[in-house]
């Protein structure tokens, strides 16, 4: 068994069905230092992607492209753009393939992370979604069972979120309030936790 367009479809639809309360939580979190639109971005993004699932091709690379395109249309917020960037990078990586071994997912995430760094200009340690990704990648490397992969990713994301809580934000809107951001969860890192939790069947 391996990761296919069908998995992508199911994942998107599953999150879409569960995104309501996550959206509210993320708007509130983002509103404390940022502009409070992270939840809106997620809700609209998953709605758009789930509409796009209907016409998704079997080519996993192209399917990821479709998801990326759907994500670009939600808003100009950073998280949406970074997610679109990640999906596009992953898509490029597996273009022409119908599936990806589970053990290769970490590599896919790595390519996504690289693109996000290139796009957003943030560094590891800046207290962003990048730090969640880094923790996840480290944890799921060499994992070949989808269930274990998901569990490990979720707990890595939780740990990352919590361990960065008392550090200052060094990029994005929250940067200008760096001091005030100490003690607050980064909204993007918190979002990753909730999205992974929502992926549980």
């Amino acid at each position, binding site marked *: 068994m391996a990761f296919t367009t069908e998995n992508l479809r199911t994942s998107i639809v599953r999150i879409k069905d569960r995104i309501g309360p996550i959206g509210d939580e993320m708007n509130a979190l983002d509103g404390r230092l940022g502009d409070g639109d992270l939840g809106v971005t997620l809700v609209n993004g998953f709605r758009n992607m789930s509409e796009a699932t209907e016409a998704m091709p079997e080519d996993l690379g192209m399917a990821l492209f479709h998801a990326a395109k759907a994500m670009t*249309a939600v808003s100009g917020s950073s998280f949406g*753009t970074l997610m679109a960037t990640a999906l596009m990078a992953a898509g490029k990586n597996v273009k022409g393939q119908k599936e990806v071994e589970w053990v290769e997912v970490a590599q896919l995430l790595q390519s996504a992370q690289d693109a996000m760094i290139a*796009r957003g200009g943030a560094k590891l340690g800046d207290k962003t979604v990048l730090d969640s990704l880094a923790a996840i990648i480290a944890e799921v490397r060499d994992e070949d069972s989808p269930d274990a992969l998901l569990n490990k990713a979720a707990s890595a994301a939780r740990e990352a979120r919590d361990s960065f809580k008392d550090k200052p934000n060094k990029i994005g809107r929250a940067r200008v309030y760096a001091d005030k951001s100490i003690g607050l969860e980064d909204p993007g890192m918190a979002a990753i936790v909730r999205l992974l939790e929502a992926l549980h069947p």
Partner: protein
Amino acid sequence: MKKLINKPENYVDEVLQGMAAAHPETYAIGGATGRMLHRPQPVAQKVGVVSGGGFGHIPVFGGYIGDGLLDACAIGDVFASPDMNPMLESIQFASTGKGVLCIVGNYGGDRMNFDMACEMAAMEDITAVKVVVADDVAAAPPEESEKRRGVAGFVYVTKIAGAAAAAGYDLIQTQNVAQKAADNIRSIGVALTSCTVPQAGKPTFDIADDEIEIGMGIHGEPGVGRSKLTSVDTIADQMIDRLLTDKPVNSGDRVAILVNGLGATPVEELYLMMRRAKARLADLGAELAHIRVGNYATSMEMAGASITLMHLDDELECLLNAGADCPFWRN
């Protein structure tokens, strides 16, 4: 919130309709979501010049569409970056085979989305490149100037790039001269009152009746701290001092100056600020070769003003004075 508006959710689109209704010879609304403003007809045989950014700063960004200025512009929601799609549409509209320059304010969303739009354009064999405007000296120290916000300096970069493209510069030349302009621009603002984002319905920030914030960003981002409202001469001096510390002005230098209103400050007060600024720069022996006073980059009904200086060389001065025509700027 005392605004002359209809439903907040229609605010941006209705204002665009008003602009197109008032100036049909200049602005047309296009794009799949109606968020690309463009000239009625593309201009063949020149480098395209586009921009895009959050709404609520008219004439920035889309107001500067016109001859010798922008060809098209992506329009976001109030104070929020447009998504990638109207940026791509703007690039497509402005592309006539010679490439497209995107003038982008230094905000995360704007930059990332334009990067993505440029990549997408490349897939269609359109070469699109970016110049980032980051002129707000209050936003970060010189060592971290890449973290500075783009504010009223956008106006000069647009004027220079638009003039270069109209004069037949190729893409690289246009980008280079726009970058040279950007490198030579410094701005600083002062806010007296907040504005209100229509959909938020309450002021973006609180500020006491006797307080100002020097260096506050055009969305209410913190500046260099609150202080008491003093005289305009004192405030202008503080602003000019910061600009000069960042990039000195020397005797004989030729400089362009823009004293800009944020939206609710009467032009009378802008002239008071200009009066002081000119006296200060004259003391240094500088020549104010180009002067503008007015509302050129705003934050809806925010009260306050900004001062922008651009250090000139012959090329920049010539392009600054070249013909241009939109409802908000004419040479």
